[in-house]
């Protein structure tokens, strides 16, 4: 980010015109400059003596690299379209065979004759568990990131940051087993306590035994998305221009006020991007939830009662013994997850886009 002005400054001062390509206005992006190839060769300036050299380069490495990046860019589209086409082609026969309402039926019996399955409870569970996980993870992650970037002594901050990154490398099945075999104990106790004192709030109602609930699943999820959000937001907070921070402090701000007025507004788009990335992981998490959730097919806001299921966990549980219709049904559910993720990403993009101008002025 900080490099761009330097480069343009250099180009401005260097009047020697050895390379023509660098001579183009600093503000124009590379892609724009690339398009009118023929317009470039005349040079437009009187000197133009060394025309041969740059042209040669342009048709060599320059061209090849342009092609490579274009191919890489196109590849993304091809892959996305191919995945969508595959999912739709496999899903349609199963959806046709389904004798229950795909959106509202609570259950998953595609191997039966006639097959009946519905996505409602699964989609609901997916969104609920991911949202709860973010609700728990984001404040903690922000706290860690702020501490590491602005409070902790440098050495401690670095080693703690290393530990957080290590957490991100733990495979999700380990989190799942840990949740299933260890965390379930404390969560059961907590559920009992919450139910005892707060059962008048509907989400804490019901009666035990507790354990494999949405609460347990989203707690495990929260721990899993924590390192992603922490690493990214810490990186963003470290990018805050020192000038802004010093200006805030010079105006008499305390540390907290400085964070609030200089660091947090500057990092907001980065925070949103980090949260969305975490949400992406939470929505798609498979095995940890297959191990910790109670796998029942019912739409319920109760977070303590055993049960809950998500699209990805259901695929992991049911794929092995599924017949043709069963696989098609699971793929159809994958398609719904694909759509949910797409919507989430679009929303994230929209938010970042809207905030962009503000950040650029802050920088």
């Amino acid at each position, binding site marked *: 980010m900080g490099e761009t002005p330097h480069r343009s400054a250099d180009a401005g001062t260097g009047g020697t015109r050895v390379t023509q390509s660098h001579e183009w206005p600093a503000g124009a992006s590379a892609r724009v400059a690339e398009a009118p190839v023929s317009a470039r060769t005349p040079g437009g300036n009187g000197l133009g003596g060394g025309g041969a050299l740059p042209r040669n380069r342009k048709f060599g490495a320059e061209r090849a690299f342009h092609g490579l990046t274009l191919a890489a860019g196109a590849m993304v589209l091809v892959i996305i379209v191919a995945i969508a086409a595959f999912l739709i082609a496999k899903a349609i026969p199963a959806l046709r065979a389904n004798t229950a309402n795909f959106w509202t039926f609570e259950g998953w019996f595609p*191997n*039966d004759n006639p097959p009946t399955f519905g996505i409602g409870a699964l989609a609901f569970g997916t969104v609920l568990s991911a949202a709860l996980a973010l609700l728990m993870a984001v404040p903690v992650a922000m706290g860690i990131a702020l501490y590491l970037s602005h409070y902790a002594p440098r050495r401690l901050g670095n080693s703690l940051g*290393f530990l957080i990154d290590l957490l991100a490398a733990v495979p999700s099945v380990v989190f799942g087993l840990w949740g299933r075999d260890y965390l*379930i104990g404390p969560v059961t106790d907590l559920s009992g306590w919450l139910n005892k004192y707060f059962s008048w709030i509907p989400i804490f109602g019901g009666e035990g035994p507790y354990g*494999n609930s949405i609460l347990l699943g989203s707690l495990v999820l929260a721990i899993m998305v924590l390192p992603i959000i922490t690493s990214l937001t810490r990186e963003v907070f470290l990018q805050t221009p020192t000038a802004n921070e010093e200006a805030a402090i010079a105006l008499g701000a305390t540390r907290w006020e400085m964070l609030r007025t200089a660091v947090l507004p500057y990092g907001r788009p980065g925070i949103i991007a980090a949260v969305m990335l975490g949400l992406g992981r939470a929505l798609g998490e498979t095995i940890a939830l297959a191990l910790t959730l109670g796998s*029942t097919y019912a739409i319920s806001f109760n977070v303590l009662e055993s*049960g809950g299921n998500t699209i990805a966990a259901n695929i992991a549980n*049911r794929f092995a013994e599924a017949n043709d219709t069963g696989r098609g049904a699971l793929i159809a559910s994958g398609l719904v997850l694909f759509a949910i993720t797409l919507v989430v990403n679009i929303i994230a993009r929209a938010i970042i886009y809207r905030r962009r101008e503000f950040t650029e002025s802050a920088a």
Partner: protein
Amino acid sequence: MKLQRYGTIACLALAATLGLSACGSDNNEPTPGASASGSAAAVDCGTGTVNAQGSSAQKNAMAEWIKAYQQKCQGTTINYEGTGSGAGIQAFIAGTADFAGSDSALKPEEQPQADAKCAGGKALNLPMVIGPVAVVYNAGSGVDNLQFKPATLAMIFAGKVTKWDDAAIKADNPDAKLPSAPIQAVHRSDESGTTDNFTKYLSKTAEADWTFGNAKAWKAPGGVGAAKSDGVASKVKSTVGTISYVEWSYAENSSLNLAKVQNGAGEWAALTAESAGKTIAGAKIEGQGDDLKLSIDYNTKEAGAYPIVLATYEIVCSKGLAADKLKLVKGLLGYAASAEGQTSLTELGYAPLPETVRTKVETAVKNLS
């Protein structure tokens, strides 16, 4: 960024070390089959490669047999993949598996497809492994030796009986001190032959109270699901108030409380290798000739029989296997059906075939050509 890279490297190193040490400890384990195979019975040694797949319920038994067989017959390759019964039968029909393991005999619609793979013969169902299903519970400390009638089990798993001190459970267990706590019925969240078998048992023995039929997927409402047998065992172990069904070996490994179940003769039967075998001995053979498809009578009147058992089959061609494969398949299955092969399973949590059935299976394997 740099830190992250170091983190990844450190993790890779850690994972590699753990992986290596895990492998190392595996090799050091004494092999239980080794001592048994010392008293070598005569075994037909084939050569070459046999590929089989199917039921994961018999995977451990198969692994044990393959290990023992390969110790007797060097230079053979036998692969058994626990891909699931359905996948195994599909692979057999497609010709990619030389024999298939299955939790249920071939269905009428599958039989002709499978027969088509056996030039001049037909596909046989040979019962080979008996996996008893245990009813396990955790009702808190001091509550053990519980026993259930099929109707009580059906009501518990259907969600009609919700407290441990319900009248129905009290009637079955007049002497037990039952807590006034809610019951949580645990079922498999993945599809499984064990669920199929257990629900079949409930639907045959408690028709009035179990209206959900039988299927690999759990149909009854409520309860809580756990992934795989291991998940079920762990859930029952960790949570007071739970009851579930799980393969015997998992129940033993987690030292769970096993319930006694009332059989058709009105006796309370505990689960042992012997009592499970009695149910199989009393089963009717439905197949003809060498086809030994069993029809298990869950209401068995056999004295001392434990009724919830799962018979898993090997599906194999009576004729039409290539000569080199035939010898190997006959050798392996012959060993599996031998008295030695069957008794080696007891410590893995399977019950040996009762003698009457075993001899029939052995003859059927000999007749393969």
